[in-house]
């Protein structure tokens, strides 16, 4: 998977992390914080590479 963006996503309360906004293979997605989700696993692997970080939510 080609991940080019990853940023935490907050719930409607503006505080609780509910997922990660990401771009994978050029497609925007909302990935849940589920360790068995394929895209979540890929993002965790991507984040281990130097210079890759999951950005904080706005």
């Amino acid at each position, binding site marked *: 998977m*080609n991940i080019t963006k990853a940023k935490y996503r907050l719930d*409607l309360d503006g505080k609780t992390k509910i*997922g990660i906004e990401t771009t994978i293979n050029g497609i925007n997605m*909302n*990935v*849940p914080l589920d360790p*068995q989700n394929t895209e979540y696993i890929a993002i965790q692997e991507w984040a281990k590479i130097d210079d890759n970080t999951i950005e904080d939510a706005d």
Partner: protein
Amino acid sequence: MTKAAELAKMGEVLTNSQIGRKNIITNGAMQISQRSASATGVGATDNVYPSLDRYAVSLGATSAGRFTMSQSVVTDLNGFSNALKIDCTTADTSVAAGEALMIQHRIEGLSCQQIKASSTSTNAYTISFYAKSNASRAIVLESKHTEGTNQQISSLHTIGTSWARYTMTVPASSSTEIDNDNTTGITISFWIHAGTTYTGGTLNTTSLAATTQANRAAGIGSIFASTDNTLEITGLQLEVGSVATPFEHRSFGEELVLCQRYFRDLCSGINGSVLSLVTHYATTNAVGTFVLSPVMRTTPTAIAVSSASHFTTYSAGAARVCSAIATDSFAPNIARMTGIISSITAGYSGWIQPNTTSATMQITAEL
């Protein structure tokens, strides 16, 4: 075959319960293509599901070759109307060692426990499929287990220009596991292009064994050798036992529901009708929920909708087109949509609906 031999085979079929609900493969008859009936330019990106449900494209090093993957119409094979078709559109005759192209079907562990003999051994099972090509073409069918030590076995098949059935029996094995969970248990791969990293050894055809990369695809040709090249596959079946029995046909509805455990479009086919009831949580949004049935493999990823402008909310006597929309999921059986609209009174309720046949709202829990 003598009558005695026929009876022995029939006995084996009955013993192995190879009658009724025997096919572990989902969408084996290639009837379901929720994403697209045809995808072009495939081959640049690893680990994608371009067209037919449950069939992934897996790459090694990327080739310059590209292909169209589609759901073809079959008119010359008794009992089948569709196939998975690979059509080379960009050739690549300079094959680097690490290149590989596989069409994969990944089976969830929960769905193949009947293959398990014990926690560290597996029963014999048989994979069968129908195929044809534009010309004689050597491909490898591989079965690969994710857990345990003995993980991989391959068989070489030369596909002809007319439909024929091909089979591979995987012997019972020890030091082989299939965990009873929602991760990948077995991956079935059709190898149709590879470099020497995967073809440089001797094909492992005898038993499940520890994976040696060079022994996985020895002897295959390359689909990318010419833009004339095509390959069609259908009738994929995996069943317990050492005998390939006739393909188990399931209804379109059954196959669709089985596929929706892994992928679905929440608004497919309901243009102009209610997609979800919504509540205005705040003055600029409309929030609705979806109960996911069937329950998905895991909490699904929500793919961005086709366009926010494809969705309209109706409340307080007015229609408002969304300026943004997002879907989130919180469990394998529940998802939530939040549409951003112009100012409305918080607490009002209404509904949201697609306003075009182009609207998509897709979620995926693929392996």
